[in-house]
């Protein structure tokens, strides 16, 4: 049924909750892994409204091989956009410069505009500074002019931002959640932390490092393809909690670690809506922790009611796409109460792993070798324990591992900058565990449809 008011665009969402609902007497902390899966219709057609802004850093440092690779990559992305999508290409230097179209607006993809845009991209020149805040503001303005639907930007940079950090933070605060942005850093002169901040504010899929400019084209094509596969924009994870409870945290834990705790608005009583951006066919996992008042033995509590919603004009028009329960039940049976759900344990480890890598690398940069050795050692142990071979391989290039089980390591004296940055960038990418097979007594409630 085309052109319905169905904001989910025919997508089906499912929620599954993994947890041990049993708490010891006096226990108050409820943990759960909430898996959200969406299935989009196979063909995403023109009925899905979408906008794409490609931002290419054209500061002086991009001169040569990098700017040529960027041109090719931008072309690949443009070729991937389907007809009817609104788009723009922006060059970023001291300010944001419109490359295509010339005016400050989005153009609609068709054979003509596609050809013109491919030509215009050939005129990129590397010159000037790096001011990401102003580039992203320009993108936000362009998206505002283009109406609703999926809003996605690709940001490529090779250097560190030359804006005062408070100015940059203010820009990120203003544009947070207004569109989704995937960030890429090329070379080793950019700062992982900066792109991570952009990624967090704009709900990207985690910043990425492009070690070899030659890999850029494939990467851009993949990002544009993923964006074209999105069907539902502005999806929020709504978490209702009982009175007198406190939400300790809401973290996306797969495919990347993203703390969403403080990113929430209240649209309906007793519930926080955490923005999650746009969705195609995909799965994401969230680790939720709620602190509730202790209850009597045998008492059962809905400690959290998780729903996937797309906002309507007013809260009563919000569309609920799926829902699930996080439960709590107090028991004197110690064995039942102390068992930790394997998925909760896994993601707790993955989040700690990311933190240990980031802290360890920061300490190493600051010359604090003792802290760096302990943190990176713990990271090695966690990666070993969880069978995270990819991270273990990246850690191997930064430390000499003496015993992976205990996390005994020695810092390598000479580390390639690219290896350090790859480890840092990829630290927030997690290894996903499969939800257990749905069976009786799951927290998952059936969604509509």
């Amino acid at each position, binding site marked *: 049924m085309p052109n319905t008011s169905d904001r989910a665009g025919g997508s089906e969402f499912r929620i599954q909750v993994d947890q041990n609902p049993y708490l010891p*007497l006096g226990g*108050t902390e409820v943990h759960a892994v909430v898996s959200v899966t969406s299935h989009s219709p196979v063909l995403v057609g023109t009925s899905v409204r979408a906008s794409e802004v490609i931002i290419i850093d054209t*500061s*002086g440092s991009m001169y040569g091989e990098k700017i040529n690779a960027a041109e090719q990559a931008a072309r690949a992305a443009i070729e991937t956009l389907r007809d009817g999508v609104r788009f723009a290409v922006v060059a970023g230097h*001291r300010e944001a410069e419109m490359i295509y179209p010339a005016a400050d607006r989005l153009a609609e993809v068709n054979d003509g505009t596609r050809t013109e845009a491919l030509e215009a991209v050939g005129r990129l020149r590397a010159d*000037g*500074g*790096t001011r990401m805040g102003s580039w992203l503001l320009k993108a936000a303005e362009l998206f505002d002019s283009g109406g609703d639907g999926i809003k996605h930007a690709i940001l490529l940079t090779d250097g*560190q*931002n*030359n*804006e*005062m*950090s*408070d*100015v940059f*933070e*203010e*820009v*990120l*605060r203003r544009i947070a959640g207004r569109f989704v942005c995937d960030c890429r850093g090329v070379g080793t002169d950019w700062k992982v932390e900066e792109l991570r901040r952009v990624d967090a504010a704009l709900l990207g899929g985690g910043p990425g490092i492009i070690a070899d400019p030659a890999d850029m084209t494939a990467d851009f094509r993949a990002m544009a393809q993923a964006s074209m596969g999105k069907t539902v924009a502005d999806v929020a994870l709504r978490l*209702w*909690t*009982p*009175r*007198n*409870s*406190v939400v*300790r945290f809401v973290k996306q834990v797969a495919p990347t670690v993203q703390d969403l705790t*403080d*990113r929430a608005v209240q649209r309906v009583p*007793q519930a926080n809506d955490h923005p999650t951006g746009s969705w195609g066919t995909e799965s994401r996992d969230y680790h939720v922790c709620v*602190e*509730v*008042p202790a*209850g*009597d*033995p*045998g*008492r*059962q*509590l*809905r*400690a959290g*009611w998780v729903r996937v919603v797309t906002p309507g004009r007013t809260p009563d028009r919000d569309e609920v796409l799926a829902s699930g*329960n996080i439960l709590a039940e107090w*028991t*004197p049976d110690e064995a039942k109460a102390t068992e930790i759900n394997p998925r909760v344990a896994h993601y707790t480890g993955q989040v700690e792993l990311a933190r240990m890598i980031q802290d360890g690398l920061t300490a190493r940069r600051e010359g604090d070798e003792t802290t760096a050795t302990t943190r990176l050692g713990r990271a090695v142990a966690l990666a070993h324990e969880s069978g995270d071979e990819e991270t273990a391989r990246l850690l191997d290039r930064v430390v000499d591992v003496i015993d992976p089980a205990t996390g005994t390591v020695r810092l390598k004296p000479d580390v390639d900058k690219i290896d350090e940055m790859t480890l840092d960038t990829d630290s927030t990418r997690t290894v996903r565990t499969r939800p257990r097979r749905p069976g009786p007594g799951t927290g998952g*409630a059936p969604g509509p449809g």
Partner: protein
Amino acid sequence: MTMAWTCPTCADTVSTSDAFCEGCGRNLPVEARDPVPHPEATAPDSVPTAPQESMAGFAPNTDVDEVGAMSEGPGGPEWDEADAQVTQPVRRDAVIPRTGPAPASPKVVPEWRPPTTGGEPVVAADPGRCVWCPGRVVDGYCEKCGFLQPTGRDHVEVRAGKVFGVSDRGLRHKRNEDAMAIRVMEEDAPHAAGAVVAVVCDGVSSSPRSDEASRVTAETGATVLAERLRQGADPREATGVAMTQAARAVAAIAESPEFAPACTFVSAVTCPNTGTVTVGWVGDSRAYWLSGGPTSSTSTLLTRDDSWSEAMVQMGALTREEAMRSANAHALIAWMGADSGEIDAHISTVTPTGPGAVVLCSDGLWNYYPEAEALADAVPGTDTAPLDAARTYVGLALRAGGKDNITVVVIPVPAGGRRAEHV
């Protein structure tokens, strides 16, 4: 608006809002931008384009006195000033003002007590409403407090005047087969003014439909007891009649003597006019007197179980400890039901010398606190906060394992009633 300057190192053109020089990579001094009032700082045009409030992390404060100085803003002073700091290490990201709420500050769960009841029988009057709070019920859970709603008799709370009763399924049994009933006489009734009647029955789990047995027995017992008192009967006489009628009522629901629903019975009548407490019982549900103060009668068990273990102790065959360890400890030697034969109704009256509370309970509670002293010590203030006390007793029994259904009725007995002389 952005003003252009020259980098002190390489003479490239830089902007005052740049963090570093794009030409030579030198970090441009951030300290020079502090909003500290400075005689030479007279370049309001060079204020970074961000709104003023974002500078909150940098501004010392915004007292009225400082407004003048603040208006000079976090502007860029002359490069001469910056150059004076060249030999010092300068950091770019000295302070990153946080946006949004502060992280991981110790959040404290607010003080909370168990959900309170409106005071009426908690068996939901309106099935769409939560039994503990004013919330609506969605999917079986309260939309406000989140608790799973009890179904039927899983957890029942009853209040009548100052008397409270709580009955809970416990943790091991599938059903709650206990029942309770409470009646309070009007203060201006011609007979037994202000008297309280309460009955607790514990369904015999080996008998069929024991939940129905306990409900019928408790309701009949309390109703008949209250009727007789209103008609002017003495509490002992009324208790005797009520027990006989209750036993008939439960016998009447049996399909056959082989298939007879059965339960225990314990009742209490407290009369403020005479200061007496009259208890009647069959089976092993108990009545306790819990002392409300040093001047009052000491806490004591008012009933004697109709159980195998009690019989062994009375005969002197076993010590109490030996008897309780036996597998037969809880075997009843008397009960109410079609298969019980003639019942031997026990009736006893005491007149406490001061305030306190009468507690009726099923063995789901007293198994964990058999001695009156221990029961009194477990929950202080039974006479002053009867609802809290009843709930706390049930909570304690659940914490201790909740192996059986638990029912507790707490009747506060005030001091200084118009007492008859001791009988």
